[in-house]
């Protein structure tokens, strides 16, 4: 490629990147520019916002832990196992990523309110519909497959011969996974967990459909924002946006740092 053409392309691609960054900055910060800082501070300290922060952090943490428990072995199996129908399984577990979260929440709501198994679980084991566990389940449904997608390349990048070698040294399949594969994948797994946690904090569509939007009950930060917007309380809505923004930026910065160290695609 001629030098002039190369320089032109670099300029064009740089301009596109700059445009996107400025666009996002304007969209996000435009609201805060026109908000009163005192009103924002008071909104931040309000009981409703404090409740939403605690509930969001708690549910996101719990759902991320559950998601990891399932996603780590699932991603490992998807990376290593060879079985008929693997492509189909791969597609199936990707569906929740492609599906709008509201649709996922609707499917869960229908399952727990209209199917015998769902009704049994909701009535006799754990109450999910319009309750706090529903938030965790909604977040789990969205982030677990995302975590699988993020972790599979991490396991793909680890030579399976390390595990086989560990087995010749006297360790079983589980022992080889715990002592070799998992430590080698830890940076990538941690990066995926951080991203999944960030996604759980911002989860709205599936949560509002399954757990509902009840003040001081199922009011996570995104739901609190929605409730405040619906009654035109812009100060509270803006305070929540800034809180979410602060959390998201810090989490993304941390996960990028870890992802680069762990060789995870970022």
């Amino acid at each position: 490629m001629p030098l002039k053409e190369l320089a032109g392309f670099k300029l064009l691609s740089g301009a596109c990147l700059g445009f996107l960054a400025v666009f996002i900055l304007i969209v996000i910060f435009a609201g805060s520019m026109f908000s009163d800082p005192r009103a924002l501070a008071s909104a931040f300290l309000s009981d409703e916002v404090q409740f939403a922060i605690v509930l969001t952090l708690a549910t996101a943490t719990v759902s991320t832990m559950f998601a990891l428990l399932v996603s780590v072995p699932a991603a490992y199996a998807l990376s290593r196992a060879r079985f008929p129908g693997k492509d189909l399984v791969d597609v199936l577990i990707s569906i929740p990523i492609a599906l709008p979260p509201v649709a996922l929440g609707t499917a869960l709501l229908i399952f727990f309110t209209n199917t015998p198994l769902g009704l049994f679980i909701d009535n006799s084991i754990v109450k999910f519909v319009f309750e706090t566990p529903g938030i965790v389940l909604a977040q789990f449904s969205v982030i677990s497959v995302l975590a699988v997608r993020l972790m599979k390349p991490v396991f793909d990048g680890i030579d399976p011969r390390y595990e086989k070698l560990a087995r010749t040294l006297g360790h079983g399949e589980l022992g080889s996974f715990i002592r070799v594969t998992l430590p080698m994948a830890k940076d990538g797994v941690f990066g995926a967990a951080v991203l999944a946690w960030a996604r759980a904090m911002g989860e709205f569509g599936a949560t509002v459909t399954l757990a509902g939007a009840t003040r001081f009950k199922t009011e996570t930060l995104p739901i609190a924002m929605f409730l405040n917007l619906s009654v035109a309380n812009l100060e509270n809505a803006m305070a929540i946006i800034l809180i979410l923004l602060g959390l998201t930026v810090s989490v993304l910065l941390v996960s990028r740092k870890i992802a680069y160290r762990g060789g995870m695609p970022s």
Partner: protein
Amino acid sequence: MKLGAFTLRKISLSVPDGESLALVGPNGSGKTTLLECIAGIRQIESGRIEFNGADVTHLASEKRQVGYVPQDCLLFPHLTVEENIAFGQREPEPEATTHVKEMMAWLGISHLIGHNTTSLSGGEKQKVALARALITRPRVLLLDEPFSAVDRSSRTRLLGELRKSLDEVSRSLSLASIYVTHDLAEAQVMSQHVAIMNRGRIEQDDTWNEILQTPRSTFVADFMGFNILRGRVTSTDEDRAVVDVAGQNIEGQAADLTVGQDVLAVVRPEAVSLSLERDIRRQSWRHCQCNVFKGSVTSVRKIGPLAQVSVDVGFPLDSEMSSELVDDLNLAAGSVVFAQFRASEVSFLHA
């Protein structure tokens, strides 16, 4: 032994305790696959693997007591040198740490305590991988081209060191070892016994002397770099036969040939001697039955102290000699020479 589409056929190898076997063959011949089957890394669909008479065919890899040193050592990158070595240990502390230190001292790598594996040289990695395999006190040691990632100059030194270590280990632990390589020189250093593999089967399993004297297949002869000459038997006499190759008679040792049969005469390039006059240069050759042919040199290739000289004597013939001798004889393309080799150095294969 069957593994999906790839089949290891007619594999029958035995390595006595305290001895080592070199497994050689071209890339893709199934050497590593065979090693992985023995280690239990791959499961075979049919066949049988025994250690000291005990069937281990369906035994899980972790229960076979096999020490495996793979091609690229595969040291665990998240562990230090001593953690790698101790990985397969089952002993309680403080015996475990003591044995790791003893093993490191024995292999001359005590200075690597606390080191990260990424900072090691090729030779150090190989010794750490060997220590890791040996500390579990295996029944069989499997070494898969452990020097493939080491530069040529270091390889010669490391080979000597490994041979010495292996000899000691084999004696003290009554350990049977299999050394895989595609490098014949490396295999000769590592073992007296060799098995040559091709397309999933053992072509020949013998001592080096036997293989160099009597290759049993065209593949073995070709792999070992023999001259392979197609001809027809013209006369036989007890254990000798005369074969017509491109109008020239070659005498060699043969047991069961018949006149008129098409055969391949094979002779090592090292056994072919070149001289400028029609005489037998070596005193011991004076009364032997020798094949002597006049021809002209077609090419001379010097590789360090050795040289390969190709001669056209009515058929192409390669000779391997010292570069010094090539210079002494002033050999170059077009030189007229006499190529000679003993009848005892010629063996015949069925065409």
